[in-house]
């Protein structure tokens, strides 16, 4: 395999973890831990990763893992950090690792509480845009247009996806960023940055495709998230102190290929895809305004 600069060779996932083929969440964890290294403790609320990490008496990770109740990632990461601090261990990084349900919905309160208190940990949300582990039910991260088990048939979701990065930026946390499994060097750089920044929760929002729920072939898992970035549907950017925006790249593709390659959107008409394009364009324009057109391109 070709060595990629900026992507450490060492892997903290054991082969034999329980992810589905092509699971974006597993790829995301792989890169996050490459960045953070062995002095990391992972806090896992109920999610796909609750399964991926393995069943007793096995483990899928080479770092310690603490499973927690669904709603408690923010609180649990706070409690673990407090225990480490009082015992004099300020070196270990605490990584809360939650899905979109555990972040946007049931875990939002404890995350918001921790962000407001300025707790010292990294919170990563791997976002596969629905409750994938329970069989693809809608969450508040599910995008406009998606069919799920609870937005079925003609009742496909007609409300927008919650903008979680904006919600966290509004807490004025020191660092918030988006990342994509299609851009590993960028993701690794962001986790390294998140580890070094102090003074509050560092939040990283990762679009992590789910072949089963998005109804795509597993070999398209990375390609689809790249198209999300290239169409500005999932822009890569960073927010410092909730105020200072940096856009990492600008895409120039339409959303149509991204939508059309996924079974979860197969019912949408051309007009509805146009409607999604309009939403993406206006969101992108707003983001550019916030960033004051300051751009850094990634290689």
């Amino acid at each position: 395999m070709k060595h990629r600069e900026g992507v450490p060779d060492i892997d903290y996932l054991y082969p034999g973890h329980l992810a589905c083929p092509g699971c974006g969440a597993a790829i995301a964890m792989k890169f996050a831990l490459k960045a953070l290294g062995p002095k990391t403790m992972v806090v896992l609320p109920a999610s796909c990763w609750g399964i991926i990490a393995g069943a007793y008496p096995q483990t899928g990770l080479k770092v310690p893992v603490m499973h927690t109740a669904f709603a408690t990632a923010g609180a649990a990461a706070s409690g673990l950090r407090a225990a480490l601090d009082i015992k004099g261990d300020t070196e270990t990084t605490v990584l809360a690792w939650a899905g979109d349900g555990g972040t946007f919905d049931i875990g939002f309160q404890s995350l918001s509480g921790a962000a407001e208190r300025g707790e010292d940990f990294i919170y990563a949300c791997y976002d596969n845009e629905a409750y994938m582990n329970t069989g693809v039910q809608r969450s508040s991260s599910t995008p406009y247009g998606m069919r799920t088990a609870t937005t079925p048939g003609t009742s496909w979701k007609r409300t927008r996806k919650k903008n979680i990065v904006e919600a966290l930026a509004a807490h004025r946390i020191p660092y918030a960023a988006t990342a994509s499994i299609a851009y590993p060097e960028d993701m690794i750089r962001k986790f390294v940055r998140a580890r070094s920044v102090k003074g509050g929760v560092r939040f990283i929002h990762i679009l992590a495709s789910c072949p089963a729920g998005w109804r795509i072939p597993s070999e398209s898992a990375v390609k689809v998230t790249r198209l999300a970035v290239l169409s500005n549907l999932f822009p890569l950017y960073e927010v410092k102190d909730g105020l200072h925006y940096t856009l990492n790249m600008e895409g120039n593709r339409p959303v149509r290929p991204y939508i059309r390659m996924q079974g979860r959107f197969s019912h949408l008409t051309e007009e509805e895809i146009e409607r999604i394009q309009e939403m993406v364009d206006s969101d992108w324009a707003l983001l550019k305004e916030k960033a004051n057109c300051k751009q850094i391109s990634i290689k």
Partner: protein
Amino acid sequence: MIRILEGNHAVSEAVRLARVQVISAYPITPQTHIVETLSEYCADGKMNARFLCVESEHSAMGAAIAAAMGGARTFTATSSHGLAYMHELLHWSTGARLPIVMAEVNRAMGPGWNIWTDQTDSLSQRDTGWIQLYCEDGQEVLDTTVSAFRLAETVNLPVMIVLDAFYLSHTFEPVDVPEQGSVDRFLPPFSPRFAMDTENPANFGELVPPGLYMEMRRNIQLAMESVPGCFSAIEEEFFFQFGRRYGPVECWMCDDAEVIMVVSGTITGTCRQVVGDLRGRGEKAGLMKIKMFRPFPAREIRNAFNPNQKLAVVDRNFSFGAGGIFAQELKAVLYQAPDRPRVFEYIAGLGGRDVTPKTLETIYRMTKEQDTPKMESVWIDLNVVDEGI
């Protein structure tokens, strides 16, 4: 040193003396004074602890669980709706075998909103695997809290110290507050049997298939079964160090009693007075105080009575569709005994209504005058109830 302490502050002093390392809490009346005092101790350096002002009771227990998993001695406090909100995590802390200690100030559940004492909040948590210890006065609160850390860390189960709202939480009494050195001799630093460790990575709380889950549950029950014995041994050491002990149950004037009042919490203090007065008038009254509710001390209770005695159970709690909860538990453990006393069930003092000496004497008289108990519990001091609703 004898100090005049509020019941809530007896908890705070014990937590300070126990050198707790992480406290996470959310305000709720009437528990609030416990954690306010602790936050002051953390702020002014009297305690070397992290105090987390979390945004809910669910997060209070969520943070406590994680702190205990991180190897820290951990405490929280709550009441009523706060405890109910924690319910999921009470199960979690037991399943994860974490020695968390929590003070729970008994307060009624709403609606209607009622901040006064009632045990239904804590008793609703009986199946969560928490050890539950009910207290009568401020001294017992302090002593039980200090001992609770020893007990929790010995059996790897969480412990709830339960005290009545206002009658105990907000009442000032003389309390002997021990010296730090003597508490340190009784309670060594927390040495967790397992904890999160980057040198020895493990996967805690993970998926457990049917082939293993049942054995893990059995382990928890074995730990529970060891509690009465461990508690007695710890109390023995506590007695040696501080000269006080309480027992999982306490029998007073029971040997020749015809009617034994079975009580818990602050009603016990009032009942001591009543039983003493009745004895003074030649009545054969006795008292049993139940301190340990989980595990329910079946052996101690079965051995305490003879079959000719009548038990008058006073429950300041209620399970709708069934009855008083202490009475149900008592009947369950007596059922298998070859000869058993008759159990008379009374409901009194819900939502903070006063249980006076007169109330308890009424219960005594009613029990004395009847031969067989009613099927349903008898509600005492009840006003007119609109039966149409």
